[in-house]
């Protein structure tokens, strides 16, 4: 019986995450079904979730309206894996220092939205990520950075000494967009390694 992975699809870079998850599943030889979630009632059926980038104000608003927000909190409380990227990191955080975003508080971190500036400051660069042998080509788009992390948060990568990839329990969150390149190692690290560990346990 294949596992089910949900991609939160209310707004943002959804199809690229679906494709990245499918590539990662092929790479590890695991059979999964990927579902796009735009309303309540589907998250509880999922073994893992991706929370894509997009606009955090729009995403947080729609998650609340559709009643998906509480389902994601329950998913994390049950210890099931989540990969949150860019706006996903902002929405998942404890505090985004902005009352326009209702954060889920599933990652014990305070986030600085658009910390790198405007779109003309967006960039791509090689990045060392904990748990990966070789650097990861990271694409930062109007990206947030992590300002403060709680005691149980593991910092996986930093840029200019500030965290840009973190792990808090079952959640891996990145400032950058691992779904925009063909390299699926972050998706494997965040979603497939835990799923395989739980399957063999």
């Amino acid at each position, binding site marked *: 019986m294949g596992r089910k992975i949900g991609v939160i699809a209310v*707004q943002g870079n959804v199809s690229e995450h679906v494709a990245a998850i499918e590539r990662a599943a092929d790479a590890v030889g695991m059979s999964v079904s990927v579902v796009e979630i735009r309303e309540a009632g589907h998250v509880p059926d999922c073994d893992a979730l991706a929370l894509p980038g*997009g*606009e955090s104000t729009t995403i947080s608003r729609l998650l609340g309206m559709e009643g998906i927000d509480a389902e994601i909190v329950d998913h994390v409380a049950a210890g099931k894996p989540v990969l949150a990227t860019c706006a996903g990191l902002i929405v998942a955080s404890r505090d985004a220092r902005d009352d*326009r975003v209702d954060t889920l508080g599933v990652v014990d971190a305070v986030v600085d939205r*658009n910390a790198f500036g405007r779109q*003309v400051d967006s*960039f791509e660069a090689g990045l060392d990520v904990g748990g990966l042998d070789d650097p990861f080509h990271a694409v930062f*788009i109007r990206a947030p950075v992590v300002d403060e992390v709680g005691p149980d948060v593991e910092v996986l990568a930093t840029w*200019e000494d500030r965290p840009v990839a973190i792990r808090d329990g079952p959640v891996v969150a990145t400032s950058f967009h691992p779904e925009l390149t063909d390299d699926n190692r972050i998706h494997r690290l965040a979603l497939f390694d835990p799923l395989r560990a739980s399957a063999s346990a």
Partner: protein
Amino acid sequence: MTETDLEELRRGTDLVKRGFARMQKGGVIMDVVNAKQARIAEDCGAVAVMSLEAVPADIRKRGGVARMADPAALTEILDEVSIPVMGKARIGHTKEAEILQAKGADMVDESEVLTPADDDYHIDKRDFTAPFVCGARNLPEALRRIDEGAAMIRTKGEAGTGDVNQAVTHQRAIKGAIRELDGMAYEERERWAREHGAPRDLAHETAEMGRLPVVNFAAGGIATPADAALMMHHGCDGIFVGSGIFGAENPEAMGTAIVEAVNNWDDPERLSEIATNVGKGMKGQSNADMPEEEKLQGRGV
């Protein structure tokens, strides 16, 4: 951080510019003329706002030359909202685009809604760090714009009319041509590209992907939640709304409803609730009744 990392850092690449456009998918980008409207748009759930001097419906009424708005308006809007802010430059007006980029616009719309500055050429968008969106009525036009460096394509529709008819026509033309290309042999695509004045490598790439290689939004005449849902039904990645929000009786209700309609475009039950009691839409002008010389879509092909 190591020296190597610094050397590797690259801005304004195709990946970064097209990536920005991808983050807008499933969203609604709203035209605004000042910070107050931008605030309302962000509160409605817009993914970005487009700063311009007057909404297209007012530009039509006013007549005269339509130019880039005073950059002060862009600055005021940038200070007001946290979502991306886009600005409109005239077709072929490289300097307006440079000014918008220097002022911090997150994307430049090289737009037929403004009076074209160049009858023969569009801006060479490849050299810019800021990403561009351009309008198109059909696939060859879209591929020419992508070849010039556009990171996002939107239908031209017929701006400022509140009539969705032309946006549908243009989106159908783009999708239909992609299906046609998909069914062609290599040499047939080569011929298609030659005959239609389309860049051949992009024609092959589009056929292989089964879609445009950049994000494809709808624009031009979208005035209601049902219009927005219709364009999603036709395979658009997201929606631009110009005069439709602030030309409506209740902009807050209309804006919020259009955002929700885009998320629920394939759920008739929810759509029916969303479309109920949002107040009157903009008055508009039917495309069929419009004299050919008043149409904006023929500008910059």
